[in-house]
């Protein structure tokens, strides 16, 4: 049983080698190489750390019982800092130097959008494990691209379905002025109309905003019955902390498209009461999920967060497709992925052929103080069927 190998192929040898370095035919015998060009340093480092630790845990688990198709799984990690230019370079290098034809775990949506047009040229396939931008499986979709994770619009849809029987009527939206923020608010406002509620305005803070006081004052001035925010990472933490200091949440509940412990934990008590869609929750009671949570706590003695769960699911989807295809060539795995049905950490899942989007259940969670957990953590308060939360083929909105 070969142990887990994280190959760091120094490019030095390759670049200086006069005759092209002949790579052993990896196709059928050697390890199954999976490329993960993600943000290990820089502003996205915390998210990248979750992707990397879960890939390592999954490889360890799979290799412990014989690997995939009898071959060990090997992840190649490269740091992109969340910058599309770096991601392109690293991904191309993995494809051309290390004969990688499977890419997972890209961090920023802009990185995914940069890599996707090249998949055909590289004859490689890409499974988005954490990217939320709706356009990945809509106008920018390309064959060989799939998405196992819940998209931004799907999260907003689940939230809207929960809000149908919530008392609040008027909503105000706050997000950052960039692609994900704008599409998230747009989708949410569309869904509000669908459930007979109204949006009384929205504001987009410039990227890099650190002080949210003027936006908190604006929300208070608009005085909605509920506030929708599309903020994550450092921005989410900063807003929650500052809004709590202004006692904003005593006036109105706040809801969000996706609740990650990544930004609710550093917000501390300020996050209690936050309701939102969830792309993955450790609290979802399901045998496959409980097994994963138990393994994760054994390895890291902390609860898996959004990006851990979604990366594990992406690996599960890939494994299922490879087993179904019986080999790892791109065309075979892509064919296997189309209309693939399986059970994942989020319950039943079906990879749609027409746009590669995984049809799966949607969850709504609330952050609360829970016994046995040192910091406020989400609990599942509603689940919605795949049919209810997944947009139609190649669409990112719900007509």
């Amino acid at each position, binding site marked *: 049983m070969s142990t887990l190998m994280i190959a760091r192929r120094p490019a030095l040898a390759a670049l200086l080698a006069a005759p092209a370095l002949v790579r052993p035919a990896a196709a059928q015998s050697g390890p199954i190489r999976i490329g993960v060009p993600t943000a290990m340093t820089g502003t996205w480092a915390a998210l*990248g750390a979750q992707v990397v630790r879960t890939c390592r845990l999954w490889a360890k688990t799979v290799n412990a019982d014989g690997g995939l198709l009898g071959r060990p799984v090997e992840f190649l990690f490269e740091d992109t800092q969340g910058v599309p230019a770096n991601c392109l370079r690293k991904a191309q290098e993995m494809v051309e130097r290390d004969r990688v034809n499977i890419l997972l775990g890209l961090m920023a949506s802009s990185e995914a959008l940069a890599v996707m047009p090249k998949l055909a040229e590289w004859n490689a396939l890409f499974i988005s494990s954490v990217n939320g931008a709706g356009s990945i499986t809509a106008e920018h979709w390309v064959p060989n691209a799939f998405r196992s994770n819940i998209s931004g619009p799907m999260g907003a849809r689940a939230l809207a379905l929960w809000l149908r029987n919530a008392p609040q009527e008027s909503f105000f939206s706050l997000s950052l002025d960039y692609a994900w923020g704008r599409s998230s608010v747009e989708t949410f406002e569309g869904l509000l109309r669908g459930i007979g509620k109204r949006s009384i305005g929205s504001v987009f*803070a410039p*990227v890099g905003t650190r*002080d949210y006081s*003027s936006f908190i*004052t604006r929300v208070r001035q608009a005085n909605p019955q509920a506030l929708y925010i599309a903020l994550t*990472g*450092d921005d989410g933490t900063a807003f929650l*902390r*500052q809004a709590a200091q202004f006692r904003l949440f005593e006036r109105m509940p706040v809801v969000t498209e996706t609740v990650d412990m990544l930004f609710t934990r550093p917000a501390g008590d300020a996050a209690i009461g936050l309701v939102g869609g969830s792309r993955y929750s450790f609290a979802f009671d399901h045998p496959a999920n409980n097994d994963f949570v138990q393994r994760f706590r054994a390895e890291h003695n902390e609860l898996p967060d959004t990006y851990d769960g979604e990366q594990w699911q992406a690996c599960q989807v890939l494994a299922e497709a490879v087993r179904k295809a019986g080999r790892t060539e791109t065309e075979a795995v892509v064919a296997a992925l189309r209309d693939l049905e399986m059970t994942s950490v989020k319950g039943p899942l079906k990879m749609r052929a027409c746009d590669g989007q995984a049809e799966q259940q949607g969850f709504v969670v609330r952050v609360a103080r829970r016994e046995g957990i040192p910091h406020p953590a989400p609990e599942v308060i509603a689940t919605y069927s795949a049919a209810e939360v997944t947009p139609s083929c190649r669409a990112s909105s719900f007509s």
Partner: protein
Amino acid sequence: MDPLALLTLQALNALSLSALLFFISLGLTLIFGIMRVVNFAHGALFMLGAYVGVTAHNASGSFLLSLVAAPLAAGLLGLAFERTALSRLYAREHSAFLLVTFGLALALTEAIRLLWGADARQAELPDALSGIVFVMDEPFPVYRLLLIGAGVLCGLGCWAGLQRTRLGLLLRAASQNPVMTAALGNDVGRVRAFVFALACALAALGGALAAPLLSASLGLGSNVIIDAFVIVMIGGMGSFLGTAAGSLLVGFAQTFGNYYLPELALGMTYVVMIAVLVLRPGGLFGRPE
């Protein structure tokens, strides 16, 4: 919320942002004023201050102690860096400093990631500081009032230090004419070491004060440096008064800009910066080189 309350609230918001920006840019203008050096590592030092502050606060339970620990740690690091690297470069061109501080920024950012890991860190404010006070029956955080107070206090303290004390005289003399100051028997090398350490300490103090608002995270460094550059440029490089004015100008421009025309906010700061630099290359209060 009636318009007057709104205006007062926004003014207080702007003042608290200006105070934060003042702490951030003070260290940068001090270094530039005295040593004509642009410190690329300023953002990383600010981030270091946030991390050390949060860790000290959680360890000791006292927020005040974190406001001492952070500047101390960064000051010592600054002193060590100045003695080992910077002191060899004073005879060299500006670009040497730029590259050395760029190197320090890269190394320090990665060192922080290795020491504290990738996740954001935070500490809960003590109850005394996390309360609110009602301004025209609208809640306003006590912590932000403290920030404004600390900003004014630190501003007066630095102004008095520079204008009223012998050390202040020495610093100003060294900034205008290092050769002559040295000729008068002062060890300009030690003055520069002290100034660089003090500037690093101030950057870290800014970080420690910002931590309760932002929590300590790896993204802190890169955004802060741009605001600091803008303020120091608008106010006037090396001019203490200019930094205070620049902080207020940018604080109010961002707060009210974000409120009334958020669409243009991102580009507006730079338009203001270009206008000032074109009309007065030395900045509002600085003296052109």
